[in-house]
């Protein structure tokens, strides 16, 4: 690996974390009043907003309507100022189109779409500040937003990234680690059943290491799910206490 030393001899990473330590996660549900559901999440310096509209009547061409389940419609975009180098367009480029598709597939696996025939659910994710693990932060925010909208889910969807440096798996990569050129694996998991909703790995890795890396990513996703769980329960308690009765 050129230049930067991603893992020191003492076992610390660039930002002082241990190999499998996650960044600090802070989140809030119900950020916006107009949408059906919304959430904001900070994972370290990565910040993402997710908004959910629906379920509602299918918009645009009626031919998209599915008679046995809801259509999930996703858009992933990044604010033009979110990256250190300014982006020219917030969405529509190849990368964000791919991410939109991944989001759609991830949530089709988790949302109980069969309960809403002929409807549509919109999930919009916006990265406000990017520092590695954008997609994961987006998925986690979207999970919270879907729960906020009261849309039935099989389970949380939790996402996290993992990398592999010096025979050691690193979890929740920051931008410097992601762009360091090493392996980076993104995973979205339904933690209770251990179902993997998304798995994507760029760059090469010896087959023998794949299992260790996936193991680390799954553990990280489960830790994220605990954090999200806390956020949801906290929100639930606060609101129920207010509604009273």
């Amino acid at each position, binding site marked *: 690996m050129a230049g930067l030393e991603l893992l020191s001899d003492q076992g610390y990473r660039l930002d002082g974390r241990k190999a499998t330590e996650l960044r600090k996660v802070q989140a809030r549900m119900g950020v916006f009043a107009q949408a059906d559901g919304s959430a904001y999440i900070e994972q370290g310096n990565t910040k993402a*907003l997710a908004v959910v509209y629906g379920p509602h009547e299918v918009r645009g061409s009626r031919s998209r309507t599915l008679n046995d389940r809801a259509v999930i419609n996703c858009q992933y975009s990044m604010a*033009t100022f979110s990256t250190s180098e*300014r982006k020219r367009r917030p969405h529509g480029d190849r990368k964000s189109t791919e991410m939109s598709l991944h989001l759609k597939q991830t949530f089709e696996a988790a949302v109980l779409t069969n309960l809403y025939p002929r409807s549509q659910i919109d999930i919009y994710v916006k990265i406000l*500040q990017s520092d590695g693990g954008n997609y994961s932060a987006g998925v986690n925010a979207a999970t919270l937003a879907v729960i906020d909208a009261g849309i039935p889910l099989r389970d949380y969807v939790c996402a996290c990234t993992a990398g592999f440096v010096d025979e050691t798996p690193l979890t929740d990569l920051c931008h410097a680690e992601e762009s360091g050129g090493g392996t980076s694996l993104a995973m979205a998991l339904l933690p209770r059943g251990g179902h993997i909703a998304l798995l994507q790995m760029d760059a090469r890795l010896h087959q023998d290491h794949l299992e260790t890396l996936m193991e680390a990513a799954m553990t990280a996703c489960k830790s994220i799910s605990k954090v999200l769980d806390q956020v949801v329960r906290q929100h639930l308690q606060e609101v129920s206490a207010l509604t009273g009765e």
Partner: protein
Amino acid sequence: MATVQISEAEKVYILHGVRDDLRVDGRGCEDYRHMEVETDMVSNTDGSAKVSLGHTDVLVGVKAEIGKPRPVARDEGYLEFFVDCSANATPEFEGRGGDELGVELSNTLYKVFGNRSSLDLKSLCISPGEHCWVLYVDVLLLQCDGNLFDAISVAIKAALFNTKIPKVHLSEDEQGGKEIELSDDPYDCMRLNVENVPCVVTLCKVGHRHVVDATMQEKACSVASLIISVTHKGTITCVRKVGGGSLDPESIFEMTETGKRVGKALHAPLMELLHKEESLGKKRDKVGFLG
């Protein structure tokens, strides 16, 4: 939602309310809704601000990049504007749906903010004809609840106030070529003088009168609006009529007068707030989206 549909009877109700100077939310014709402003929201930018006005939410990021001065103004830097009407604000904006509104908004922003009377563009010049700072002002719409222009203009002024451009040291090497060195020290930076940066006031003609800070329902009753940008001294720097209907000269004159007065009054509380926020520095917990 970018637009709303309302019934004839609701329109009549709103029109009569404006006539009596009692709007649906209890405001008078010249009252703004409660506004919240916070700066320094995005660390990847050189300056940023978030403004919420009613349920309208706007996030503005300013990025300074080194570019080449325009041939017509060799000793000045310049500003670029982009408005992202994101699908977060309303599903109508999905895909290319928000592009039209985005272009309309950003074109007006060029006229209002991208000129010498708004900012000292000369201070953005690094070496005449060769290098200058280009400020990319990117607006992100997060929620639409009417009166986008005014909210955006306040957010831009706040973000420009918050902008910190690294100091530049020019040195010449042996061949006579210039080398640009950016200061590493985050405190060694240049601030912009935003004193003359205008604020926009949108006046919406509703019936025979006009209102400021129109909600979407009021906008739906109005045939035309006037956009006026006003500096802290009360100087009008830009006037635009928008909307499908027409306005007679007399009401344009009246609206300009109102706009001037209302716009002038926006600056003092905004500057006071920005200075207060800065003086609190790290003592103040950032609210952001977590509040």
